[in-house]
């Protein structure tokens, strides 16, 4: 067990020796020690706590976690569109292509947003302006980032619609004339209109029925391969993660409690919460009467428990868990876990 390998420690070093950065491999997206809070009515919500992760071009990272765990906040921070106030970034760096997004001036960020980074929002029903035709809305992002005439822009918008399986002729229609699945595809078309290098997809399939889900996932996969886009996929659907992600980070109470390759997380989960997540899925092979939920509720983000934030719900918790916040431990190559008891947990899993 090497305790000095958690990502925060690494980044500290590279900051003190900036020239070292050029020498070693620099990830396309490198989020370091991100900390975001929301302040409302004098209460502080600690939405994101010390989150670090890296992502290369062409890779897909799945952010998995319960509702309210801070997944969308992380994505919005990467996009630079956190509403401030109430949100505030206390700490951290978000390096994209060797530029810290949090330090880029506003005007320059406008040129990056929509072009280099694009985002697909969670709820297709409300993500489109109800008063504009979808063609106008796709055209908006195209015109912002490309020197094209209106005519060319609309043509491109039509092509984007065809790409997501909507007839280009429908660009004159309004959002209310489309079904939920089609709206989601419009949103995706909009996000992909300027060939983004980083795509943040916030639960792109949650609002869709299963057949449309499969279509949308297929579409995203295809585009990723074609454009070598890096992608962060936010979801609480482990099936979707299994289908398209390379890496997975499990978020609990605003913290990455376990991260690693898809295989690490699915085949060798080490954190009790991750294990709980998998156990709560119904198995088709066994005759199960009851689902196995994780006992208890996610913690109140205005009042996180001391020590490990999962300990009140953790079946393996002991007194020490309530005392100190566990470090991020590399338990296998590239497989990190924030649990001091991971060895014990794993032994229990193997010999129940």
């Amino acid at each position: 067990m090497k305790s000095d390998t958690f990502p925060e420690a690494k980044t500290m070093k590279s900051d003190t020796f900036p020239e070292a950065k050029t020498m070693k491999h620099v990830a396309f997206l490198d989020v370091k020690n991100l900390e975001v809070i929301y302040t409302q009515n004098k209460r502080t919500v600690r939405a994101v706590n010390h989150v670090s992760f890296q992502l290369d071009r062409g890779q897909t990272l799945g952010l998995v976690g319960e509702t309210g765990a801070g997944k969308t906040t992380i994505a919005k921070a990467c996009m630079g569109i956190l509403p401030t106030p109430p949100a505030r970034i206390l700490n951290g760096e978000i390096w994209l292509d060797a530029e810290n997004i949090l330090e880029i001036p506003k005007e320059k960020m406008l040129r990056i947003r929509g072009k280099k980074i694009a985002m697909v929002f969670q709820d297709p029903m409300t993500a489109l302006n109800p008063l504009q035709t979808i063609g106008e809305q796709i055209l908006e992002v195209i015109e912002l980032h490309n020197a094209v005439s209106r005519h060319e822009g609309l043509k491109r918008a039509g092509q984007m619609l065809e790409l997501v399986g909507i007839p280009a002729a429908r660009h004159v229609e309004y959002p209310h004339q489309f079904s939920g699945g089609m709206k989601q595809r419009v949103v995706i078309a909009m996000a992909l209109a300027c060939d983004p290098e980083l795509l943040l997809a916030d639960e792109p399939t949650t609002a869709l029925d299963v057949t449309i889900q499969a279509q949308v996932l297929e579409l995203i996969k295809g585009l990723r391969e074609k454009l070598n886009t890096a992608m962060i996929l936010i979801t609480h659907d482990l099936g979707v993660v299994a289908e398209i992600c390379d890496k997975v980070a499990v978020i609990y109470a605003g913290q990455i409690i376990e991260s690693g390759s898809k295989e690490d997380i699915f085949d060798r989960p080490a954190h009790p919460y991750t294990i709980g997540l998998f156990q709560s899925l119904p198995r088709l092979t066994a005759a199960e009467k009851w689902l196995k939920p994780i006992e208890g509720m996610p913690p109140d983000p205005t009042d996180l428990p001391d020590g490990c934030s999962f300990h009140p719900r953790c079946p393996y918790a002991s007194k020490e868990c309530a005392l100190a916040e566990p470090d991020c431990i590399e338990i296998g190559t590239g497989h990190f876990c924030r649990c001091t008891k991971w060895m014990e947990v794993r032994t229990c899993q193997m010999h129940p």
Partner: protein
Amino acid sequence: MGKYVIQRVLQMFVIIWIAGFIVFTLMYMMPGDPAKILLGNDATESTILAKRAELGLDASYVEQLASFMYHAFVRFDFGYSWSYGVPVMQELLVRLPRTLFIGVSAMVLNVLLGTWLGVFAATHRGKWQDSLTMVIAMVFISVPDFWLALMCVLFFSINLGWLPAYGIDGPLSYVLPILSSAVAGIAINARQGRSSMLEVIHADFISTARAKGQKESVIVRKHMLPNAMMPIITGVGGGLAMVVAGSPIMESVFSIPGVGAYLLVGINLRDRPIVLACVVFFAVFTSVAILLMDLCYAFLDPRIKAQYAAKKVG
């Protein structure tokens, strides 16, 4: 869409007729014999009877009502003023432009300035600009408009001597009446505009627009405002009605010979033709305004347009 407009126009006519009917009945039931009031105390029984016959007051209620409805709504003739003996319609047409001008200008100010203030407050939410705007708005909603009008006269006309205090000598005379009529509406629209902007500000499609890399000022103009305008537009019809209903007071304060002042004259003299003509005008004006706003709504919101279109098919 076309069918919807026709349907609405027909509804409008019915509403105006009902308004005419109610006002006629109320005027008919008013105590006091109009003939006696017109002739004064020393009139003899026979002259009063003659006057009643002349004014058509000896006919039954139903006959009088029928005659009024026929003349007013079919021939657009409200008869002669009982006190002045001139055709009411002719007088009304002279006064109409003044009241309309004040009402419409006040409304334009309401919408433009009120909405702008609302947007300003909403985009500075929680900061001092927001609090200041809202406090001022609250003050102007609470202050009675006639008092405000008098204060304006005192300040701008008497103390500063910038603007005429009364009458209609030139365009400057209209500044104070328009302002005093508009202020309450501006304040109401500012508050309405702020709250509907705040509703829109956190909408997902605003995040979408930001994610596109759109400038904040363009987001406000292209995405927030059109969506926030809907409740404001709904309020415009009512606001216009308010301005017109306030016109008797405003026109008295500023001595403007408009329809509102004419209505007051009619009421004071129990001059039924004048009152009826003015009230019917108010009803027409308000109905048309509300109709126009509803059409505006449909024009701006494709969802509502679609509903109307669907009605046409069904």
